[in-house]
């Protein structure tokens, strides 16, 4: 017996819509089994993971806080991956954006006016984009594998940030804790609805970005260009599209989005730059991008789901004593199931018994 794939003549519309849900369902089953082997009641665990964090308003705000950077980064990555450019260094661009955006409040703490925040956001995007430009340039100019270079630069950015917040940018009044001065009020990203919870404008940016990028990707020639070059570079060249320019476009866009996420994180919930801002959003966003099937609107939903696993992980730890590391296992499994179920979109899968037997009989 073996598994046999037959290419579908057309992509399955049904499975395009269904596959993320099947993946989520399978992940829950696998997760339940995992919790059971850890000696916890799987239903309780799943309840704390997926239901409990949704029960209170403040908790929904926390969800938005976690989802905002994931969605922002994943939207950029979706364009990148669709064009077949593999930027996996979003984490580094996130840090670069956070650093660049922090320049103003850290170096010019007395410059306080309403312009500060917009400038910070722009600088954050520029920082992320500039950092992403390095692997893009190396790929175009020297044909260097962008997967490895963009990833290596993550470590470099993290170490650089570590040096900054322990060295030149350290808050002199911070009792030798690493971290910059707390940002002044003009440098803080406002909360959407302060009476209800902490969710800040980063989430609004994420929603706006999702709609804009969705429109560009699905309705305009630019989106068409991205898809053509991603699926068939040779046909793209025949169409007169430039692969080199696409590399820059994809990397700069995804870098800018990651940078925006980075500055929103420090100017939002964290309120200053420290050594702990890099907690892996850039990598989790890869999962978000695939769970959202590289569609910006799908990514909004996927970002909320992944944010839920973070909160759920905390909830399950408090209530059941489950390791919060389980959340990352959960996320990893989710990506596996997403990729596996994507196969259903392009192929029919069947278990083939040995056909010879019947041929022999005939």
């Amino acid at each position: 017996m073996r598994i046999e794939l037959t290419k579908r003549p057309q992509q399955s519309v049904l499975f395009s819509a269904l596959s993320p849900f099947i993946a989520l369902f399978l992940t829950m089953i696998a997760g339940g089994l995992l919790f059971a082997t850890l000696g916890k009641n799987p239903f309780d665990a799943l309840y704390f993971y997926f239901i409990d964090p949704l029960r209170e308003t403040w908790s929904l705000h926390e969800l938005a806080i976690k989802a905002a950077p994931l969605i922002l980064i994943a939207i950029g990555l979706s364009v990148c991956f669709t064009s077949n450019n593999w930027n996996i260094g979003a984490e580094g661009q996130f840090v670069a954006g956070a650093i660049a955006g922090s320049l103003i409040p850290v170096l010019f703490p007395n410059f306080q006016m309403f312009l500060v925040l917009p400038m910070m956001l722009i600088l954050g995007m520029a920082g992320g984009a500039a950092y992403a430009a390095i692997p893009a340039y190396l790929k175009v100019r020297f044909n260097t594998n962008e997967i490895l270079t963009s990833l290596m630069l993550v470590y470099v950015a993290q170490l650089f940030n570590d040096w900054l917040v322990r060295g030149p940018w350290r808050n002199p009044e911070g009792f030798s804790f690493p971290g910059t001065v707390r940002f002044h009020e003009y440098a803080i990203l406002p909360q959407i609805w302060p009476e209800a919870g902490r969710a800040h404008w980063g989430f609004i940016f994420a929603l706006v970005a999702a709609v804009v990028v969705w429109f560009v990707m699905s309705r305009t020639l630019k989106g068409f260009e991205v898809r053509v070059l991603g699926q068939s570079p040779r046909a793209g060249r025949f169409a007169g599209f430039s692969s080199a320019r696409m590399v820059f476009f994809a990397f700069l866009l995804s870098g800018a989005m990651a940078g925006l996420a980075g500055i929103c994180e420090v100017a939002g919930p964290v309120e200053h730059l420290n050594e702990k801002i890099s907690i892996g959003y850039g990598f989790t966003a890869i999962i978000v991008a695939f769970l959202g099937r590289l569609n910006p609107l799908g990514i909004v939903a996927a970002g909320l789901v992944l944010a839920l696993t973070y909160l759920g992980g905390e909830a399950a730890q408090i209530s059941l004593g489950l390791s919060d590391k389980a959340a990352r296992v959960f996320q990893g499994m989710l990506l596996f199931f997403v990729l596996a179920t994507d196969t259903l979109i392009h192929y029919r899968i069947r278990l083939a018994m040995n056909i010879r037997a019947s041929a022999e009989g005939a």
Partner: protein
Amino acid sequence: MQTDQRTLKRGKTREDTELEQVAQNRSAPLLEVNGLTKIFGELRACDAVDLVIGKGEIHSLLGENGAGKSTLVKMLFGSLEPNDGTIKWNGSPVIIRSPSEARALGIGMVFQHFSLFEALTAAENIALSLDKETPIATIAEKAKALSKSYGLPLDPSSMVGDLSVGERQRIEIIRCLLQEPDLIILDEPTSVLTPQEADKLFETLERLREEGKSILYISHRLEEVKRMCDAATVLRHGKVVNHCDPRKETAASLANMMVGEEVITAARTPAKTSGDAEPLIEVKKLSRPPATPFSIPLRNVSLNVRAGEVIGIAGVAGNGQGEFFEAISGEALQSDASTVRFRGKDAGWLSITERRLAGVGFVPEERLGHGAVPEMKLSDNLLLSRHTTDSKAFLGNLGVIRRDTIGETTKRISKVMDVRKSAEDPEASALSGGNLQKFIIGRELDRKPAVMIVNQPTWGVDAGAAARIRQSLIDLARSGSAVLVISQDLDELFEICDAIAVMHNGELSRPLPIAEATFEKIGLLMGGAEPGHVPHGEGAA
């Protein structure tokens, strides 16, 4: 009258009588296939196929592209699993589960798209198909000896990636012969050869027949089948339509059996151009260094095509045609703007989009992945080559794609070119080769281009679609456009061209007017012979 004869013939060569005849005429058959069936999804690629091959017989398998020939031989060679039917080898039923089992029985195969490894040497390639472990040095020795005895020169230590198509085929043949098979299957062996190389191959095959080996010979070139084969089985849409003796048939009657209807050849009205008409395509001393380790440099290629003309470029695959297409289409730019000129204007520095804006249409060789994106809909593939030339019609504000007009144009092209499809707007990969090619050609014709440049217009396309495509190219030229056709198919070039030039090793010969051109002359040029080859610089005169 011919048709009558054929019906008569078909009447008496019904399967069973034919089988009996074969059984009587020859000694016990080597291979007997009954009711062999292969189903892919809903397609019955082979439908209850019967085939009998006698010992020492060259048996031809005839059929159009997509008739099921390749599927059938893959089942015989064990690389595809039949859904139904039986195979008898030397009278006893066998099941061939894998190519190595086929080889163990004594079946060898020379693939159409060679199953070679470019990064390995010839000897290593041969070693991979031998089932017992043999030292490479021994294999190299044996291969050398065998190649000498058959007059097929071969250097076992050469890297396959560096070899020409003809040399690669020799490796395939030697590899096959080294296994001492009783039945050799050759899939379209001459499609990549010059006429002279093909003659050489026929000698080898005839010698193998004398040695008592059987050959299953797949081809769509009817003349060579008539000349060499002892028996033929004709497939159409996966079914056997006839078993016959090709020597007793005419090329036309064989063609009719394959296609199932009267075969139309394109009507070529004489070109109306006078010698002093303005050339619409001017290529002057185009040279290009190789872009990749495996590509051919272009050397001083010069060519003019005037309004109203169809000019052909013949040549064996891999002699620089692809590189030439890239250069002339603007996928690769020239260093000197005047080396390529369209409609009297320098185009060497123009991108492919700008060349299209200058009124040129392009059709590349590869349909899926170059001329079209396989997993995109036809309407998207329309946009692929026309997003800028037709930006007014196809794009709105902010570059928003206007699905309605694009959809209508797709429909119009499909209608004009008779593109048959299963859905309103299917993905390109869901179309058959012929229908997709009709669409890709139609996509350019729809713009009424002043200049049309086509690489391999009918490669792997069924006869009906091929005839339509060829006619449309002639009609375009006669309506005042310049048409340049690059093709490996000599029959095609002789059918539609007003003059034929030959590309060999990155150099282009002077075009021979069709009245002077013969298969032999063109064949010699394809093989790189000097006669008729004009030194650089005079070609454009």
